[in-house]
């Protein structure tokens, strides 16, 4: 299946990615010096991986930088409508940062952020419950975030532009 086969990532690519994971703002020259390469090689390889949608070098920002102080998980039961359609509608909310179709007792699992508890009632009772097909919602509130590590993520084409 050559069509689906991704262009391969070699050891030099991986070494560059590790450098970028440590410091995404390191210059091509710094990375080149650390790895014994030329800056031009580093630059070309980063550009190729980005063009192939294999790599994004980005700033991640903390929830609090955006005024989001509350993190919640909401388990949702769907009735009378395809779960994928309900999930697409839920994903349109800017506060929803993850929406998954899941197996088990619930149909959709959603992670969302809120600025404060004043926004909770409107979010739960109006905006989520009013999405067609949502039968029930079961929220769980995060009181403490012990670990939060995601450096592997689906990269959508054109995502960085």
């Amino acid at each position: 299946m050559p069509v689906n086969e991704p262009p391969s990532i070699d050891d030099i690519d991986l070494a560059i990615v590790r450098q970028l994971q440590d410091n995404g703002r390191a210059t091509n020259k710094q990375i080149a010096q650390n790895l014994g390469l030329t800056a031009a090689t580093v630059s070309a390889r980063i550009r190729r991986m980005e063009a192939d949608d294999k790599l994004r070098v980005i700033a991640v920002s903390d929830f609090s930088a955006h005024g989001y102080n509350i993190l919640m998980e909401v388990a949702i039961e769907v009735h009378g409508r395809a779960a994928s359609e309900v999930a697409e509608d839920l994903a349109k909310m800017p506060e929803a940062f993850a929406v998954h179709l899941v197996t088990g007792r619930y149909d959709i699992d959603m992670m969302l952020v809120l600025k404060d508890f004043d926004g909770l009632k409107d979010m739960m009772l109006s905006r989520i419950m009013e999405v067609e097909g949502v039968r029930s919602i079961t929220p769980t509130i995060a009181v403490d975030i012990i670990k939060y590590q995601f450096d592997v993520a689906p990269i959508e084409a054109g995502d960085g532009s």
Partner: protein
Amino acid sequence: MSAAQVDDLDLKLIDILSRDARLSNRQIASQLGVTEGTVRGRIKRLQEDGLIAFTAITSFGLADRSKLALIGIQSDATDARAIADRVAQMPDINAVLVTMGRFNILAVCLFNELSEVHHIASEQILAMKEVHHVETTIAVHTIKYNARIVRITNDAAATDKGD
């Protein structure tokens, strides 16, 4: 949680950097109509305050661990923090939240084979004496995932190098 001191210029800077962190200070400065020194100073402060971090997100790591499971854990509330700390040490666990609701702890696990989730949930977590119940939910399809807004934790840099 204390309110972060972030103004409009900071948010514009974050927005630009969250799309491409490889832009030079000069390129960013000209986009925002400020000096290079302002950009450099703001980036430094946001980093020092733990409000932004620079990293590389890869999709090729997904070949190894492309599936996501949510592991809900019930325990006595007084044990939750200690259990969460132990679960956070497990290498395949990407996020651990202490929660109020159906569970005391919610952990996110990236995996490839179902047997890996079973091993973590049923062999390792359930084996802890303080854990009463473990419930695993498998995500079969991801509709949305925003990797750009996260909780920046102190151990982030250390665990980056994990795999």
